[in-house]
């Protein structure tokens, strides 16, 4: 049976819950063992865990005949022409998100598990779920409106680089530092034509002030190097984009 509350628990696991609803939900999880069990089931079937076995599937070479279908279907010239778009496939393969299965202990007691459910979805999951969790309304707004180099106190959100991507989207490299947890995440989000920002690559959370943060950032830097079309925007240009509403380049 699915109830509104259990669906909220699932939304929490997937990072789609309205932050305002989090305190009430955590309280309910702590006092309702049946609901907690449902939440644990959702956690056990998290996006990251279900996706993990399929991770390699999108990296497999696409059969040439399938590419040929797209390139030449309806083409009077027919097959035999150079298949230029293969370069796009190679490019895409380098960008597919990385998933890692969380090492959850589902044997934890109810109170601990409730805390894990609440914290896990929002702060500590080094997985795709975390990327989703980061896309709160706050973060959407921060990506849309924060000048480069500015620190947004509530979220500790710091955009570091803004650029036009090879996929024809505005993208922003940024760091998120979660208040009180001493965790930092480096990530890149891109803006769809519909106006929503989506995290396309993120590095695992790393303790603040320790060496591993650099390697996480290096991975993100490498991604940006491959993704960027042209030069990154100067601060004044970023300000102008914020002012103008992120109009696409033509």
């Amino acid at each position, binding site marked *: 049976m*699915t109830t509104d509350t*259990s*669906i909220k628990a*699932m*939304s929490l696991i*997937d990072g*789609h819950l309205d932050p305002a609803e989090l305190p009430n939900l955590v309280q309910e999880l702590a006092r309702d063992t049946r609901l907690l069990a*449902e939440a644990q*089931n*959702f956690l*056990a*079937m*998290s*996006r990251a*865990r*279900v*996706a*993990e*076995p*399929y991770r390699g*599937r*999108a*990296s*497999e070479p*696409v*059969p040439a005949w*399938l*590419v040929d*279908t*797209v*390139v030449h*279907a*309806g083409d009077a010239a027919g097959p035999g022409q150079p298949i*230029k*778009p*293969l370069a*796009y*496939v190679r*490019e*895409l*393969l380098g960008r*597919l*998100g990385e998933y890692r*299965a*969380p*090492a*959850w202990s589902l044997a934890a007691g109810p109170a601990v598990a409730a805390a894990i459910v609440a914290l896990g979805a929002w702060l500590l999951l080094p997985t*795709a779920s975390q990327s*989703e969790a980061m896309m709160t309304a706050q973060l959407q707004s921060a990506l849309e409106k924060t000048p480069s180099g500015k620190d947004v106190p509530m979220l500790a959100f710091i955009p570091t680089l803004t650029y036009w991507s090879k996929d024809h989207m505005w993208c922003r490299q940024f760091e998120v530092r979660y208040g009180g947890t001493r965790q930092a995440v480096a990530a890149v989000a891109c803006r*769809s*034509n*519909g106006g929503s920002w989506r995290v396309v690559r993120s590095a695992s959370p790393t303790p603040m002030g320790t060496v591993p943060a650099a390697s996480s950032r290096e991975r993100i830097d490498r991604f940006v190097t491959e993704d960027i079309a042209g030069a990154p925007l100067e601060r004044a240009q970023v300000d102008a984009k914020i002012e103008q509403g992120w109009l696409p380049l033509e």
Partner: protein
Amino acid sequence: MTDEIRARMVAVLPRLRRFAYALTGSTELGDDLVQETCLRALSRVERWQPGSRLDSWMYRIAQNIWLDRMRANKVRGEVVDVEAVAALPGSDGRDVTDSQLTLKAVDAALDQLPAEQRAVIALVCIEGVSYKEAAEITGVPMGTIMSRLARARQALHAILDQPAPARTPRVVASKTGS
């Protein structure tokens, strides 16, 4: 038709193949589905709105073709796919070690879900689309997506993580080859 649209379709192929594989549980059937999806998309490319997401549009086409096939198979009677039967969970199929799931186990578990639930798991959990995008792709309200997803996850958990005796293999719908 511009080369740019074809190129963008090619760029979607790796993820579309994974989605099709998650729906069909078979590389061969999945690639067939991808090919049909591409042909249909190319024949109706004027229906795609520039500025909207090409991948979502192609996911939608693939899902619709697959659901049509599943319904047709139901009418015609189910056909055994040898590869899929071999992968059904049970004493051999339950390759769950610790918290890590295997492709074989998840494939077999997905195969036991209703088609609509399987599609939403493939979209949200495997392809990572948002609830809203999944609603747009499947053409159903977001509340329906969420309840389908919740039921599907509970079912997957029951199949994959609960200790249970070996199940009786269920014959699955598949390509007839005709």
